């Protein structure tokens, strides 16, 4: 075969305990193509790719690389075969610079002087051998040492690779100072540095903004043009259609099929992936709007580094509406959420909830006022859930103290269990029991537990950030549905999101943040993706002070409520 497949998998099997993660997977990657690997959460995509990169070993089946049968027992093996993987959770040493992170994996000769010594000893005799040997030993040790020393040269080498692919990365920058997209770029550079010809990217766009994604795609296309073969794992159908040549679909650990992207459309891919039709239209029920529940006035908050993360922000949420917050990653969303929940010190400004200023209240008091905040961080765990505790215990997190038995010293686990059971039932959480530790659940199920709990606490304001982050379509819709039900019952919702399509469909109004400042609040039905994109990058700022009335323009008003009601 002249043009062998870059990778060919035949009947790959892998199980973890009793759970079969992969069953008889057949997959092929052509030379120089971009293959999208599509599948819902838990369909076995990551497991499959981990077998290619040597992290797991298949229980059965065969792997061919460039037509030859191979056994990939370790990441070293994968590296040797030219397979590089960019993981969803980056594997970087935070305190090292970009260049050092790349340098880390270099193979340097372990005992250069021992080999040299042997050769010297073979040649020379007696005293001369001894002195020559000594010299080699000293020089060799020095050389070996300097080999391990980090030389300035590495920065240039790394920079060279970067410019070749059009990456902009500062080789001396420490990883902990990097933004998410920079870390990802670094991972890709690392893979390329070691000469990978086959590159696997696990959900690379989950943490990127639209612009960053587009930049990534450009890089991928250039890599493809240079003859690299790429597998990209993603949930986002528009991205699949935009970047890939072919799409392979997995469903529940099984291989469903591969289609040429040119012949595919969103509907068809969704059908392949979920096995049943998912209504792509998100409903937006019209609810009679009420008075503002939560009003934020001139809020200023600093981030951990002391920089203003939220700068003079004002907005309000009414009962029965969903206010979307759009913005590129790290433009103050997290700080805004934490400020509302009482977790972050407020520099200046007011937060009025039902006519009462809640600035300076303890987080517990804010919870008791019925303001719920759920924030799904990039690693999905860590905030809002205690991973080692059971679902039951996690249900009780916010209500254990004042919930059903405010004066009893004991935790009401029966209530927790009932709530856990209800969420498992209603949201279709896949778990052996209510007593399973949350960390044993898969990502989507973890989020369902978190969002479910927030809603069950019966809040009147829900602040939710990235509730569908990393979720498959089916689960995402379930969550949109939950939010809409809440909206209908009169709850005010602040929805911090990343997918503009979703926000345009789901939210009533959208507030756009750029570097902590409000660029404008627009009615979702009256705006476009392009407008939002321009505002997110700061190109378009609708907010202007109207000197005459002391009011600001660019803030969408609700026609059926007069200005007096706001105050």
């Amino acid at each position: 075969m002249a043009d062998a497949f870059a990778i060919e998998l035949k009947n790959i099997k892998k199980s973890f305990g009793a759970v079969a993660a992969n069953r008889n997977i057949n997959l092929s990657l052509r030379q120089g193509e971009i293959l999208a690997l599509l599948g819902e959460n838990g369909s076995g995509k990551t497991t499959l790719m981990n077998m290619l990169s040597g992290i797991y070993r298949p229980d059965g089946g065969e792997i061919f690389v460039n037509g030859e049968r191979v056994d990939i027992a370790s990441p070293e093996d994968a590296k040797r075969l030219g397979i590089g993987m960019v993981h969803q959770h980056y594997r970087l040493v935070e305190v090292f610079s970009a260049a050092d992170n790349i340098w880390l994996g270099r193979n340097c000769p372990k005992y250069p002087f021992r080999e040299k010594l042997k050769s010297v000893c073979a040649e020379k005799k007696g005293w001369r051998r001894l002195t020559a040997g000594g010299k080699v030993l000293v020089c060799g040790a020095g050389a070996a040492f300097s080999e391990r020393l980090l030389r300035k040269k590495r920065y240039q080498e790394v920079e060279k690779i970067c410019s070749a692919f059009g990456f902009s990365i500062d080789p001396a920058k420490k990883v902990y100072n990097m933004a998410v997209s920079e870390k990802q770029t670094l991972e890709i550079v690392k893979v390329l540095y070691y000469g990978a010809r086959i590159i696997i990217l696990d959900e690379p766009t989950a943490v990127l903004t639209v612009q960053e994604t587009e930049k990534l795609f450009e890089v991928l296309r250039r890599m493809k043009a240079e003859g690299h073969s790429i597998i990209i794992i993603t949930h986002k159908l528009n991205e699949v259609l935009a970047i890939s040549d072919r799409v392979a679909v997995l469903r529940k650990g099984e291989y469903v099929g591969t289609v040429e992207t040119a012949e595919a459309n969103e509907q068809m891919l969704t059908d392949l992936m979920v096995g049943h039709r998912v209504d792509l239209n998100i409903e937006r029920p019209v609810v009679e709007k009420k008075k503002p529940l939560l009003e934020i006035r001139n809020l200023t908050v600093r981030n951990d580094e002391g920089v203003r993360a939220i700068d003079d922000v004002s907005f309000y949420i009414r009962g029965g509406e969903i206010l979307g917050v759009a913005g590129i990653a790290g433009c103050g969303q997290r700080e805004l959420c934490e400020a509302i929940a009482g977790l972050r010190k407020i520099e200046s400004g007011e937060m009025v909830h039902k006519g009462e200023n809640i600035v300076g209240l303890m987080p517990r008091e804010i919870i008791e006022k019925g303001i719920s905040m759920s924030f799904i961080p990039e690693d999905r765990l860590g905030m809002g859930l205690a991973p080692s505790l059971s679902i039951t215990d996690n249900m009780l997190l916010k209500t254990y103290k004042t919930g059903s038995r405010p004066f009893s010293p004991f935790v009401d686990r029966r209530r927790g269990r009932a709530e856990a059971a209800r969420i498992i039932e209603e949201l279709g959480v896949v778990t052996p029991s209510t007593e399973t530790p949350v960390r044993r659940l898969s990502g989507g199920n973890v989020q369902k537990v978190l969002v479910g709990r927030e809603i069950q606490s019966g809040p009147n304001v829900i602040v939710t950030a990235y509730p569908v982050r990393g979720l498959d379509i089916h689960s995402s819709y379930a969550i949109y549905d939950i939010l809409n039900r809440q909206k209908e019952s009169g709850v005010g919702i602040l929805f911090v999101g990343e997918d503009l399509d979703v926000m345009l469909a789901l939210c009533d109004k959208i507030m756009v943040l750029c570097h902590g400042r409000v660029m404008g609040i627009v009615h979702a039905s009256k705006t476009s993706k392009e407008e939002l994109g321009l505002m997110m990058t700061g190109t378009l700022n609708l907010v202007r002070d109207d000197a005459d009335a002391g009011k600001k323009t660019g803030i969408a008003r609700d026609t059926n409520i007069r200005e007096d009601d706001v105050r």
Partner: protein
Amino acid sequence: MKTMKRFHIVRREGVSLRRKCLYYVIAIFSALLLGALLLLTCGVNPLDYYAKVFTIGLSTARFPAKQVENFLNALVPLVLTSLALSVAYKMRFWNVGGEGQFLIGATAAAAIPLGLGSVGGTVPTLLLMAAAAMLASALWGGITAFFKVKFGTNETLLTLMLNYVALYFVSFLGETKGKWNFFLRTDSDRPIFASVFDTVAMPALRIGDFSLSLALPLTVLICVFLWFYLKKTKQGYEIAVIGDSPGTARYAGMKTGWIVVRTMLLSSALVGLAGFFKLMTSGSLSASITDNVGWTGVVVAWLSKLEPLGIVATSVLICVLRFGCSQASVNVSAVDSRFSDILQGVILFAVLAADFLLRFKIAKKEEAC
């Protein structure tokens, strides 16, 4: 191409309780076997030796009741200290200051009868002693928590260093004669700690020759209380959440700083109580009054995965070993009483190995390459 055997480590999930028990039993058994070989090389009959160890020397004792009493006296402080430490560990607060808290507790308890004499009878005196022990220890340990919460200091270092402060403080008390130093015997020209037994004694229930100290039932009660506290109460729940994820605890509106301080106060107060109990079996203070329970307690707490019942079981095992070995070594001149330290170490390693094998399995594979 040739076939190659490769070993790799695979995570195990859902191991049955029976299998767990079996593994631990095998681990302990193999450790004992290793100990037996060691005994053989010293020319000691391992069967005789182990028989003495595991019957804690009861088989040949003229006063078996005393043996049991002494065994329980050694067991009570260990159980209580391990339990107390485990409370802090649940919160991922590395309290390694058991030794110091124990010493401070014992010292504070001793100060009451030695400094004030009997305060309105035995029971009030004892209650006052217990309160003093718990309060002093709680403060001693609470300082660490306070500094951690307030200034982010490292609690491991601080508790560790405070151990030595406490140790040297007690040594100082024991070596310095002076009018102010009411801890010492007045009739001795050489400094030596006075006995509290001249003033108070722990109430005990006499059953024939055997007298059951009140400390034992109290410890059992505390054990049950702690089980409920950790598993059922809101405070226990808070400890679990903070131990698992401090960020989440803050998010859930818990006052994490106060909870850390409160839990550490409880933990060190209980260690102090153990110090008081020990003082009431020793009678007098000494720098070695801890019998190393502050250190052993750390091992016990971790070996038993911070489970109250496991702590009791592990404490009994370790205590049987230590106590039994010192009983057995009476007749044996080749092996001294510190043989138990060796056994304990070997058992620890074996149990850790079993733990590893319970969590992972080593899979073997033959493959072409």
